[in-house]
């Protein structure tokens, strides 16, 4: 009875690859299932989307076991996406269409998702940009969501190759005007579709009411007030129209430096201490102006720092923490580890995987972010002091740290709508420059700074003893805030001790998942977020395994409990109605793999994946390796 029956085998079916988050519910766009399944053959355009160019007789490579197979089809480029329309794409069965992204198909790459384009000329891979003199026989597209596409153009007509390649390069690389972003033509064409569901709704923080609601929810309304002083962006475009400041703060202070130097409320802890952020005052050389700044800030600090009633600690993120450049460099290295062209590359990098990971520094950056957030949590929770995050524009690291702190401390932020509201509050309304950081307009001169927001929360690590606080007081603080304020920055020893005690203490107790949550930050506990980074790599797929296996058991059990509950309710009302069983989303576990729900069926066979790379040298152990297990001579009998 044992045997080949490994799960997930079966015929070539397709792989939905959702990679786009939309507040517009997909079902509001497509209601017709039939239309969805037919989409692969006929190009499906969103409202307002236009076909720009296309090429036929293109082969898309599909990794299958250790060899590659080509699927023939059309490659098209619209003003929204690059799409491949395969000729022989089999239809999905019902269970699978549930997991299909209804906007972005398996073979769709939105233009903004394209990271890098390579051409293969005579077996050599070259990065493609600008005007091409020669057209490649193969096109490799690396996506920002870490998918890798290989298209063979050898059988495509020459003019079509030219058109599609230059089209793709142009539409993914040329600078763009803001008004040309597809979003606007889509919004104009699809105006009628507005997602509003009264329940489960995300707070947008675009009205005074939303801020009041948040103040009330966190009981911050005792000491803080929502202000509309920036209504219509009269004072500053950087700040939201409505925001929250300490109650005693006069509104005219906000105007004085266009919102700079103003403590803006992020969140209040149950014990009344608050998390605040402030954008620094512009740098000045002039002593007179510096004096003005100093006295202004002194005034501001008197409002928020009134010992013993109210104490504030300042956390300068611009100078004592990660730089944006560091984050960007690390991520560029890190993502490269997952943009894998073929099986050989996968196994070649597998041997030195850990050192490659380490040299990217990405996990260390994650650890430092988490650690910083725990430190701030300690101040708020254990020391009951306010924390003021300071950053040049208060719109990068402030967003990151403040939202991490809230995820740790506020269970509401761990719900779906709570998290969406948090993103809206801290990142969207918080003025994070998405346009620049993601370089949506592709201005080559602008540096791309990316922030990886979603940090897996359950990740721990080993305690880095290197303090983030140097003994020497920071220049910026000294200049801007004066000596009195700089004293508020605690010394490194004290901080390390407090942190350690708080952290160890929390971890020694049983976890209340609805309360404060601190991630582990020790080295072995900070791991790669496999579900995101490995999701498209067929070699990394565990058929029938991975976390989804336990999750599907959990969901099954939840359904069973629910149906039992209904049964009991019915009995109570003595209704003997039989209920049809709700179909379980994940019941068909044979089709699941660790890559679920991303590359649902990327691997078509039940063959095991075998490493192809060899053994790395043992170094100083070579001598041992040569020894025999036992010292008995078997004799040349």
């Amino acid at each position, binding site marked *: 009875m044992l045997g080949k029956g490994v799960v997930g085998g079966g015929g070539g079916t397709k792989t939905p690859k959702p990679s786009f988050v939309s507040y517009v519910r997909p079902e509001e766009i497509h209601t017709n299932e039939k239309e969805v399944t037919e989409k692969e053959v006929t190009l499906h355009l969103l409202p307002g989307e236009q076909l720009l160019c296309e090429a036929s007789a293109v082969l898309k490579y599909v990794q299958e076991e250790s060899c590659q197979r080509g699927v023939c089809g059309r490659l098209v480029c619209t003003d929204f996406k690059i799409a491949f329309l395969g000729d022989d794409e089999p239809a999905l069965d019902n269970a699978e269409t549930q997991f299909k992204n209804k906007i972005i198909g398996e073979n769709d790459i939105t233009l903004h998702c394209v990271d890098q384009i390579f051409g293969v000329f005579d077996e050599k891979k070259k990065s493609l940009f600008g005007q091409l003199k020669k057209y490649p026989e193969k096109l490799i597209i690396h996506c920002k969501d870490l998918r890798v596409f290989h298209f063979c153009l050898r059988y495509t007509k020459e003019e079509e190759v030219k058109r599609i390649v230059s089209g793709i390069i142009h539409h993914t690389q040329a600078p763009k005007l803001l008004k040309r972003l597809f979003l606007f033509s889509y919004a104009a064409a699809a105006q009628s579709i507005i997602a509003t569901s009264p329940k489960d709704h995300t707070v947008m923080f675009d009205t005074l009411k939303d801020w009041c609601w948040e103040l009330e929810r966190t009981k911050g309304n005792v000491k803080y007030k929502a202000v509309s002083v920036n209504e219509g962006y009269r004072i500053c475009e950087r700040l939201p129209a409505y925001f929250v400041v300490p109650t005693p703060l006069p509104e005219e202070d906000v105007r004085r430096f266009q919102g700079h130097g103003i403590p803006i409320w992020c969140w209040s802890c149950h014990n009344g201490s608050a998390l605040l952020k402030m954008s620094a005052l512009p740098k000045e050389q002039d002593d007179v102006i510096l004096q003005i700044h100093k006295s202004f800030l002194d005034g501001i600090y008197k409002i928020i720092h009134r010992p013993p009633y109210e104490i504030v600690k300042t956390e300068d993120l611009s100078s004592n923490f990660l730089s944006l450049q560091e984050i960007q460099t690390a991520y560029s290295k890190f993502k490269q580890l997952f943009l894998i062209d073929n099986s050989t590359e996968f196994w070649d990098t597998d041997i*030195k995987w850990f050192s490659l990971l380490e040299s990217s520094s990405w996990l260390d950056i994650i650890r430092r972010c988490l650690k910083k957030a725990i430190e701030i949590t300690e101040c708020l929770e254990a020391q009951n002091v306010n924390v003021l995050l300071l950053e040049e524009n208060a719109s990068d690291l402030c967003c990151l740290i403040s939202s991490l702190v809230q995820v740790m401390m506020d269970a509401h932020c761990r719900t779906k709508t709570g998290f969406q509201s948090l993103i809206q509050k801290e990142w969207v309304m918080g003025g994070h420059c998405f346009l620049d950081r993601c370089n949506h307009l592709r201005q080559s001169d602008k540096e791309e700074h990316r922030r990886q927001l979603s940090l897996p929360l359950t990740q721990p690590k080993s305690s880095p003893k290197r303090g983030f606080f140097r003994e020497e007081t920071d220049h910026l603080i000294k200049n801007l805030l004066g000596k009195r304020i700089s004293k508020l920055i605690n010394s490194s020893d004290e901080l390390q001790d407090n942190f350690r005690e708080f952290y160890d203490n929390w971890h020694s107790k049983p976890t209340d998942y609805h309360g404060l949550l601190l991630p582990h930050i020790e080295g072995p506990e900070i791991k790669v977020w496999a579900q995101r980074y490995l999701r498209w790599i067929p070699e990394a797929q565990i058929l029938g395994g991975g976390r989804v296996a336990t999750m599907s058991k959990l969901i099954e059990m939840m359904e069973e409990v629910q149906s039992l509950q209904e049964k009991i309710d019915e009995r109570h009302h003595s209704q003997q109605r039989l209920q049809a069983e709700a179909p379980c989303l994940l019941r068909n576990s044979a089709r699941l793999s660790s890559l679920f729900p991303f590359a649902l069926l990327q691997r078509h066979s039940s063959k095991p994946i075998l490493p192809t790379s060899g053994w790395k040298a043992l170094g100083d152990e070579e001598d041992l390796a040569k020894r025999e297990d036992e010292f008995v001579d078997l004799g040349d009998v």
Partner: protein
Amino acid sequence: MVGVSSMASASAPKCNSHTSENEPVKSTSQDGVNCDLNETVPRLPGETLITDKEVIYICPFNGPIKGRVYITNYRLYLRSLETDSTLIFDVPLGVISRIEKMGGATSRGENSYGLDITCKDMRNLRFALKQEGHSRRDMFEILTRYAFPLAHSLPLFAFLNEEKFNVDGWMVYNPVEEYRRQGLPNHQWRITFINKCYELCETYPALLVVPYRASDDDLRRVAAFRSRNRIPVLSWIHPENKMVIVRCSQPLVGMSGKRNKDDEKYLDVIRETNRQLSKLTIYDARPSVNAVANKATGGGYESDDAYHNAELFFLDIHNIHVMRESLKKVKDIVYPNVEESHWLSSLESTHWLEHIKLVLTGAIQVADKVSSGKSSVLVHCSDGWDRTAQLTSLAMLMLDSFYRSIEGFEILVQKEWISFGHKFASRIGHGDKNHADADRSPIFLQFVDCVWQMSKQFPTAFEFNERFLITILDHLYSCRFGTFLLNCESAREKQKVTERTVSLWSLINSNKEKFKNPFYTKEINRVLYPVASMRHLELWVNYYIRWNPRIKQQQPNAVEQRYMELLALRDDYIKRLEELQLANSSKVSSASTSPSSPSQMMPHVQTHF
């Protein structure tokens, strides 16, 4: 024994009263502690207290802690004497690999008389003792005596253990039954008793499964050509395609490239058992250079010239010495402090996970050959008791879901490891003081680590949980049970291990609930292929770093906790539903039907769903 221990315990209080001579009040309280300790020190039937001492435990995580240590013939037990600390540890003496004195008269400081105890389970215990009364010397001598009983002609504790369980773990594995479960004997394979008195091969079990067509004389001739007479015998047969996994030791080819017609013929007979025309696949677990080098000492591998119908592959798994050093390096980076600044590259430099990867890769290849019906497989390394056991047992775990149950796994260990002569006594060094013995190596631990990696990748495929695996590893060293003692079946029989000791499986099987994985889903037909990529392999933190309080993981994890809650809720609802149904039915027909028992009610309830 009893005499020795009572003398020892009698002398200990004397020692204590000596130090506190002018404080009679204290000395009575000392006695009080002694009375008290009989209740507070856990003792197994057959376990006797030898001594107790006041010590400073130098905890690597929390600094020095004043405590009282109790030494029995089975364990070292520490109780804190400080009110703010509840620390207690309880270490079986079998876990001790080395005891060293630190400091002494020449060193300064009050805790200068120290003992450093190196354990086999990735930790060290450090104590500081008072200079007076030779307390360190006493403790050192007593510990040495009871931790290394073999060096003092004392029995291992397992032979003194009088624990009783309601299940007999020795009954778990019955080779005839296990082979019958596999459908053996059949037309092609027979059970032979040629090794009944271990005269064919001393390190093999009494009962062997061999090709029907090979006579006992053939077997004897083949034995002459295989290292330590470990001839190819069947480990597992595929229920459908009848492909087999066969295990053995290396052929005695030697420098001169000797051949043996009987061996060649025997392998061909194995190949032909399932009437396949394809070649027999031989997996030599060693790196090819080692296999070649082994010729110098009389070993070697099956050459193409001699074995036309076989295809040989090397699996590049390193020897026991490399594995031992690798684990040592792991300890260096996790104990007492976890390497911080370069965790990943340090981990890489231990090579531990790389070795795990190679072992798993080898096992996957074995399983795939057999499962795909391509060919039968013969596995060997040098002697066929280390790497070979790892490969066959892991491949069997991948192929046969039976071995993924609690009892199935016990049978697998009992069969492929214990009965086929993995040299547990030499590899672990039970009761032996020679800590630097080159025969020691964490081969079985490496196997359990591979199993853990598989259970991580397939969280619903195993009936047992992590605790089960850790318990097995703990008792691999503890010497409380006879399960892992000695090197082979013949030695165990001589020592009457099954009569004189308790089996670890008695402990586990009488308390199975503790070791069950709530997510387990029985799937009969499924072959599990783990992904042997560094991207998925992890250091087993809950085992290797479990002594570090900072790393200690929440047990159970959030998802498991939630699942358990739901399970409880479900059971509660089912009960309530039954009660409601009962109430209804008794209302409807109060006199006509007799009250149904809940168990009778169940099917009714279920049909309703």
